[in-house]
């Protein structure tokens, strides 16, 4: 009986200790922005709601990044980017019909940098 109680206690303690695995923690998005997760730096994806818009239309473009202290730099070969941070809105007028490249350069506080680009067709 005494051994059963001791074994049970050991099993419970083992369960408690093995459940405390280190895992990525969601950091406060109000400090680092959305989609930022503490851990190694990685520019996971650059995505758009739409890859084709009509003149005067718009699409939201999102950058998904793992890291801390992330900064985002955006540019477009033609058309207009409105907003800042991990999510921006892209729009274009008649001057910018065609395939336009939207580029995002992300950096973390360690100075690591990565770039991704997508193409939006304006028709």
């Amino acid at each position, binding site marked *: 009986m005494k051994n059963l109680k001791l074994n049970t206690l050991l099993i419970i303690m083992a369960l408690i200790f093995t459940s405390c695995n280190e895992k990525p923690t969601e950091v406060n998005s109000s400090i680092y922005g959305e989609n930022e997760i503490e851990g190694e730096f990685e520019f996971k994806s650059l995505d758009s709601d739409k890859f084709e818009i009509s*003149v005067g239309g718009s699409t939201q473009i999102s950058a998904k990044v793992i890291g801390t202290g992330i*900064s985002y730099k955006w540019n477009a070969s033609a058309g207009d980017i409105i907003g800042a941070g991990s999510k921006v809105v892209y729009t274009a007028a008649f001057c910018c019909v065609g395939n336009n490249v939207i580029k995002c350069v992300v950096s973390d506080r360690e100075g690591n940098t990565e770039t991704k680009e997508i193409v939006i067709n304006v028709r």
Partner: protein
Amino acid sequence: MLGKLIFILIIFSSPSYIIAQCCSPGGPTVGSLSSGTVWKNNLKFTTYYQYGISADYRDGSSISDFDLLNKGYYNFIGILASYGVTNNFTLTLESGYYITKTQDYNLDVSDNILEGFGLTELTILPKYSILNAIDNYFDLSFGLGIKIPFTREQQLSNNVVLPIDVQPSSNALGFISDLYLNYPLNYNDLQLMLFNRIDMNTDTDFIGTKYTNGTRVATSINMLYGISDKFSSLYQLKHEFRAQDKRDNKLIDASGYNIFFISTQIIYLFDELIQTSLLFDYPLYENYNGVQLSIDYKVSFAMTYNLRF
């Protein structure tokens, strides 16, 4: 009185120089303040403020229902200095600063404004008087100059490169030609002035593309009328043509235009050396290639100082 007016000639007698593209709020009369040559050892210094607004799109000459922008507008300060090296040769420097150059988007986003600010370019324009007369201020002069950008880098706002339409500068080297005629009619205090300016730009790198602003040709005919010893009025009809812009050597749709402006100006002479002007520019006729944001009006206020050495 008329002689003095000619000598300290109205800076706004020259046509607008609009940095407008498909969605641009437009641009001020930078580079259009030329008034011919200045007498030897005289310095004419002008500073001006201009506000311009564009709130409608046009397809050709007709109003369009396209509404990406609610409006575009700018606040601009310009300076111009002309020094008479000799009675026939004048050196002119021109530049300006956008306090704001703004596009207000008709989009359902939290922050729908894009705004640039900063220096435009420095224009260095030597002018030579082909024919002039001291006794009646007749002046036919010609100038060839260059336009130098203060930077070749595009402006960012919150780490986002601003679109080309709200960049304060073309970031490109340019070349200017300037032809000016002042002809006093000697009738009831009237003067006739003709002005022509051609502005050609080289290309600039814009986000990995080669961008070239279209060549601009601006021409105006002006009539100056003396109201009293202190007040004068100037009436101007001006035309501006701009060729289409190019991106990687391909013509850009929705760029380039033909616009006729009518302009009125009231000038007040404090004394022989200082004058102030209030100017209103209104487009009489506008024709754009494709659908572009069109100009509503411009209002300007200027001070001119004449110094003698």
